[in-house]
């Protein structure tokens, strides 16, 4: 992990504070999870450099992100969903994979071409997923077309990727970059690597014949709507310019239990982004040399990206449509009275006057 820059962080004050608080907040949760069951699994459709595929998405329960156990990201509640104690054994992980295959068999006619594995941490971290398990999973899905593996940039190594490419799989490393702006990633998200580490991971992936899918977070805490939107536009452009990064998934922050964002939200100091902001970013970056998609979780609810309540489903539909077709004209098809409000929020909201509208 890279060290926080000295100016604001004498003795890592910002990081220490965030971590202390996040540990405390997470300590509030009591629920425990079965290490033999995946956190979640579902079937969907996804846009990849080779076209739109049916996909099987797996959230593997690996004991959770090590960074999150130190405190972790201000918006991330997934660690609250991991097993107690930290490590999940090889056999248990393989039980989870079996459960996912059962789910797939029950919900699709034929096996999905695209497999996406997330761990709410790093699949490529061998303390989360041992090499043995990684190879067994590569073997299991070796007959598919494409696989997406979530990881922090630090764990992206040539050999770990060739475990998969050797099976003829197209491999994408999903990196939770959150933003290209180091300062925002450090101070608002509390995630400690730099954009340079992401660039290195992209280079490593490219060498190994893999690609990188960057995950961005729209509107971490402490930013106004406009600051959040502008940060995403710049971040998408910077990511798309990195060789090896062929897809950017820009996702609005949602309010998850046992997070700092949740505390701000409940006290009136946070509002998830507007769906109009998501649409605006996608529209303004439609020209970049990468696939740009977004999947607003919990759209239309107070805790997810939302507009006025009248138009949320329509705008969400346009976003999903854009994800598959990359055609910005989809946004011309939707309009609502609340665009005026959103426009005012963009112009009037500052971080000391927010949220201006719920």
């Amino acid at each position, binding site marked *: 992990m890279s060290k926080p820059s000295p100016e604001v962080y004498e003795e890592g004050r910002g990081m220490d504070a965030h971590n202390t608080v996040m540990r405390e907040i997470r300590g509030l949760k009591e629920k425990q999870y079965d290490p033999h069951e995946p956190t979640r699994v579902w079937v969907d459709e996804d846009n990849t450099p080779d076209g739109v595929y049916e996909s099987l998405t797996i959230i593997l329960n690996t004991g959770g992100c090590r960074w999150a156990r130190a405190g972790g990201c201000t918006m991330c509640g997934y660690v609250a969903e991991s097993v107690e104690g930290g490590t999940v054994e090889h056999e248990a992980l393989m039980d989870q994979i079996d459960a996912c295959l059962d789910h797939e068999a029950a919900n699709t006619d034929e096996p999905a071409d695209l497999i996406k594995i997330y761990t709410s941490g790093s699949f490529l971290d061998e303390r989360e997923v041992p090499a043995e398990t990684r190879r067994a999973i590569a073997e299991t899905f070796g007959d598919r077309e494409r696989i997406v593996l979530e990881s922090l940039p630090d764990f992206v190594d040539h050999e770990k990727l060739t475990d998969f490419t050797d099976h003829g799989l197209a491999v994408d490393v999903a990196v939770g970059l959150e933003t290209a702006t180091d300062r925002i990633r450090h101070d608002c998200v509390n995630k400690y690597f730099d954009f340079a580490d992401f660039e290195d991971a992209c280079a490593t992936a490219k060498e190994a014949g893999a690609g990188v899918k960057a995950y961005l977070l729209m509107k971490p805490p402490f930013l106004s709507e406009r600051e959040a939107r502008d940060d995403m536009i710049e971040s998408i452009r910077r990511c798309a310019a990195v060789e090896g990064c062929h897809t950017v998934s820009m996702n609005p922050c949602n309010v998850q239990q046992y997070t700092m964002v949740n505390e701000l*939200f409940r006290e009136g100091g946070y509002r998830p982004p507007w769906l109009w902001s998501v649409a605006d970013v996608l529209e303004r970056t439609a020209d970049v040399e990468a696939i740009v998609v977004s999947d607003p979780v919990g759209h239309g609810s107070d805790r997810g990206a939302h507009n006025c309540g009248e138009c949320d489903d329509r705008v969400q539909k346009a976003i999903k449509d854009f994800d598959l077709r990359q055609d910005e004209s989809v946004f011309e098809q939707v309009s609502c009275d609340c665009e005026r409000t959103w426009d005012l929020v963009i112009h009037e909201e500052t971080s000391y006057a927010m949220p201006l509208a719920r």
Partner: protein
Amino acid sequence: MTEYFEVLNRDGAARLGELRLDEPLVTPALLDDVLVDGGSLWTADQPLPEGDTDQLTVLPHRSLPAGTREEVREAFATEAVDAEFPAAAVVSSRSPDDLGVDAYILSDASGFVGHGEGLKYAVIRVKQALPADTALVLSGVATPLNVATLVYAGVDGVDAKLAKVKGSQGKYLTSDDEAFLEDLDELPCACSACQQPREEFTREDCIDHNVAALRAELRRVRERIRAGRLRDYIEGQARHDNWLTAAFREFDSQYSYLETRTPVVRNNELAAATSDSLRRVEIQRFADRVTSRYRNRFDNPLVLVPCSARKPYSDSQSHGQFHDVIAYRGHTVSMTSPIGVVPQELELTYPAQHYDSVVTGRWSEDEKEFVAAVLRRYLDRNDYSRVIAHVPEHGYRDIVERVDADSALDFEYTVEDHPTDTDSLGNLAAALEGELKYGKRERQHNTVKAIADYQFGPDAGDALFGDIEIRTTGRYPKLQVRDGDGEQLATMVPQYGMLAMTLNGADRWVDSHAPTKVVEIDGFVPHGSVLAPGVVDASESIRPGDEVVIRGPKAFGIGRAEMSGPEMAESTRGVASTVRHVRER
């Protein structure tokens, strides 16, 4: 140090101020046109803005929103920078640091505006931590409905951000409501945006209207502050939203915050029309001083009489009749809601001749209990040979009987039906039969001593005027107090029933045992006024309107405080005190 903001006028915690830009702006006001954001440090390193004297520059900030925990607030606290231009800093109400700027914007206003208790704690915390002469700004929260209460709490600047956003959402704002445009049959407003048929009124118009309504409300609030009558307005207007009523009641429960800032005298009417009037500082302070500072110096029986609508009471017809019968044989004390009991010597003293209450003869239990408690404490402190209760039914009698029940004194009741009917007045005359009269000299001496007690503290009347042969000259109520040599010590001010001291009076005051209120100043001779930067120290007990001794290496004077003692000590701008007389030394 505050350089570009100055408080000109105070009405409790509310202030009329001036943002001293190229084009000065009178506050409380909308700051949209003058606030210029220096940028958020969350997103990038920001250069120190160049600033300009035609704007209020918001220094680069790390805004900490509502709900940010202490560890994070501390780690990301904004550091002070030296700004040579009008500057505002963003701070959290949870950890407000004095950063040496003219104005402070609270980053977590959206979290406490809407909650009475939250607003109270936020404002009080901030006011305790920041110099009194800095401006307090809330951004993105003001509406025509809440802005009067925000200002009443002590806010100096707001903006129209929220009013605009609500307009865009079709929410029509007025000082009494927030309505959905679709639900309105008529537009209840005279602003230019509203001068069109209801059907043609758009959300764009609604934005214009909301901003106009907010501006108009701020004009009203500023006028109220100038008149010293914001509280009267709040007691009515805040009723339109329960959280606002909760908010001003919460502040009433923070007596010392409001008391420190509330003037001891005013020249205008005080409307006591709601149950909340009882909790006003002016009312509570009067009751407190009458029962803890004032002392009766007459040997005559106590005659309790009902108050009159006309003020001062002695100008009323009923009191004229009482007076004719009592004929200086009894000490007349009026019973009244909401201020309690008013001894005859204090009938001019603020707010005794200034309040106007709603008289229907219906007393609430709160009123009865309050007046009974004051009367009880009054009788504990003052000895009387007899108590004659010349009071009618309908509240008065009920209250007196409650006090009578736990008093060792035997109360004599003299009213049959109405206090001014022949039988009642006859009873009163009979009750006073044989009592001795007090003379004019005793009456006038006791009056100025009573006012001194009330104004300066327990036994101040005797400490100032007791051990010398004083003389009173002039015609009541414009009495002058003189010493044995004929030198004038003080004048009684008829408009608000307090004493204005002369230099000789100030000498006596300083030498006496009476508690003095002193403004210590630097080595200069003030003329007309003392400005805050010239104040070295000031008595904690000084309230706006208080008589103060002004003392420094080069001067000794007497004047009237324009701000509280703590505010004088903290401020670097503004008039601390006016100077009535000064002597070089």
